[in-house]
């Protein structure tokens, strides 16, 4: 049975359970690999979880000068190899989803790796396990499609660059792909 990861930011209630669960993993040494972003802090408490989308052609891996980011056979993009990462933040700038974070104290990049040590043996990632509202869902596609109205999409267009991901985002049923006009987010008007 093929298990996939689905994100539905509209279901996020901002409880931070996912962030705490991620940071409690021994190998993370107290640092969470995922973060919660406030959509518009001034006017709304709504949050959205930012987990790695595990793109098919990962920009972070492509721009890494130290060859520190590797992709497994299943297409899971690993976090930076600690021996190789030089802390240049190239990946932080390159990722269109804003996933990698540079931790100053460790001089390393950290990012979600879909809990590969768990998913490779059939367990669910920590964040999906603890999410109370199923904003983060890890399971079979058929099971999800049965229960939800929204449609999972994995096709994004940032400006003119198309990005195909392994992790799916839940979007309104009539959506084919998410086209994001990046420039319009930047400008105030």
């Amino acid at each position, binding site marked *: 049975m093929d298990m996939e990861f689905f994100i539905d930011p509209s279901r996020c209630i901002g409880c931070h359970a996912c962030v705490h669960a991620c940071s409690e993993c021994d190998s993370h040494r107290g640092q969470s690999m995922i973060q919660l972003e406030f959509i518009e802090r001034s006017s709304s408490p709504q949050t959205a979880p930012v987990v790695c989308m595990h793109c098919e052609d*990962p920009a972070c*891996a*492509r721009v890494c000068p130290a*060859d520190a*980011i*590797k992709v*497994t*056979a299943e297409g899971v993009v690993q976090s930076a190899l600690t021996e190789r990462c030089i802390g240049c933040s190239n990946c932080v700038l390159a990722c269109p989803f804003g996933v990698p974070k540079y931790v100053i104290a460790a001089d390393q990049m950290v990012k979600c790796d879909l809990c590969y040590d768990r998913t490779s043996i059939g367990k669910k990632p920590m964040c999906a396990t603890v999410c109370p509202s199923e904003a983060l869902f890890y399971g079979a596609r058929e099971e999800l499609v049965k229960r939800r109205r929204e449609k999972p999409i994995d096709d994004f267009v940032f400006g003119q660059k198309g990005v195909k991901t392994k992790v799916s985002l839940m979007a309104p049923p009539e959506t084919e792909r998410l086209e994001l006009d990046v420039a319009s987010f930047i400008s105030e008007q």
Partner: protein
Amino acid sequence: MRSEQKREAWREDFPIHWEDDEYVTRREFTKFLGLTSLALFLGTAWIAVWERLRRRLPGAEPARRIASIAELDFGEVKLFRYPTAEEPCILIRIAPDRFVAYSQRCTHLACPVVYEGEKERLRCPCHEGFFSAEDGRVLAGPPKRPLPKIALSVRGDEIWVGDRV
């Protein structure tokens, strides 16, 4: 377009996907050296076992009559094959009452050795190696190991061969 092609060359050396990565880290190499150590130990242990087995195997080297005492005069030799047909051996009467036998294959490069009675030694003509007729030790020349001695037993009128020493 040319810059595209230039990028592809180094991308082969540093692939993103784990399976395409053939880069051997020092840690991997060190583990490989550990395996080599295991292999060498197993080789040595195998020889030790084989060495023991060779001596214990029953009927591997049955005793055989090779000559009668009357056949050889003092200083004469007789060639025989023991334990198999491919193993040439030399029987020598080095004293009126003493017989010795050695493998005839020089321990240097396996040329057959000849007996030089006056000098009480065995000579290998290929590279001028010399062995003592008394106990087979190397007297001179390229051989490093002594000539293997073959155990003899005198039963009445006959000379029999037994185990190699």
